[in-house]
């Protein structure tokens, strides 16, 4: 069993399904799933995962809005933005917030790699 616990936050049911299968296949523990930023914050507070995979465009509370809240409330949780949006605004904002950004892609390897890096940083 992996020692890395991951929370997946995405409003698309099928992206959550895909990530659940891909991350599990890579040996990671998907400990929770959130469909918007508010759920993501609530689950991070209660589950305290090592890393949250965060979509940027979500209803109720977007990933952009969610990140500062998570950084304040759950500073020990690593965050990776996983988005179909990678325009200048998203890149600049993620740079400013110090959050790595990965583009949604059928290949899970780049995402798995950054999750492992964030989890390793957390253990240091």
């Amino acid at each position, binding site marked *: 069993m992996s020692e890395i616990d991951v929370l997946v936050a995405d409003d698309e049911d099928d992206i959550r399904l*895909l990530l659940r299968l891909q991350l599990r*296949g890579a040996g990671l523990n998907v400990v929770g799933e959130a469909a918007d930023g508010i759920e993501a914050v609530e689950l991070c507070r209660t589950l305290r995962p090592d890393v949250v995979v965060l979509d940027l465009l979500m209803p109720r509370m977007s990933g952009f809005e969610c990140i500062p809240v998570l950084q304040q409330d759950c500073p020990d949780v690593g965050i990776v933005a996983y988005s179909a949006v990678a325009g200048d605004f998203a890149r600049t904002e993620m740079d400013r917030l110090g959050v790595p950004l990965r583009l949604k*892609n*059928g290949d899970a390897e780049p995402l798995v790699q950054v999750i492992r890096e964030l989890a390793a940083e957390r253990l240091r």
Partner: protein
Amino acid sequence: MTTLGPDALDLVRRRVVNVVGHELRTPLTTIRGLAELLADASEEELHDTLIPALVRNARRAERLLDDLLIAGEIDTARPVSPAEPVDLSEVVATAVDGTDVEVEAGGDVPLVLGHRDQIAHAVAHLVENAGQYADAAPVARFEHDDSTVSFVLRTPVERALPPAELELGFELFFRGEQAVTRAAGLGIGLPVARALARMDGGDVTIADEAGDVVTRLTLPRT
């Protein structure tokens, strides 16, 4: 008609390619990712989970293509079959099933003349739009006169939409201020719904009524 200069045209081109690419990315990411998991999946997982998800996302990509053809007023998008009587109340009941939309009870709704698939497509866009931006359950009702039937959808929103956004809602690829960071989307739902309605001799309008957003799909009666 306003003529755009080269810089503005380039901006529009980049914006269109960007939003189309963004919307295609979700179904294609899912299709590719799930397809790569097929080989190692159990029989049960294949039939219960992976294949339905693959079909769902292929349909989503197909619908996106249809929307783009309709929005671009490409001839292929126009129906080839003749118009026929359609039960608009049944179409709406199907579209709102599983959503928060409440349909007000009323008398019989007269049949409209059109293409069922197109009308269902237009209604689906209006219901989807309402679901994305509603701050309370949207309420649907029907109105009719001697020549038309209307599906009226009232969506409560916390902050009234600026008048400019109501006007721009029918512009291709326009997305309201609240939509940009809250939800993915092409910004073609309203123009597509209107284009579909107009193909059947109807129309879609949008208005602010006492702070609520009200969309109205009107079609000719049989």
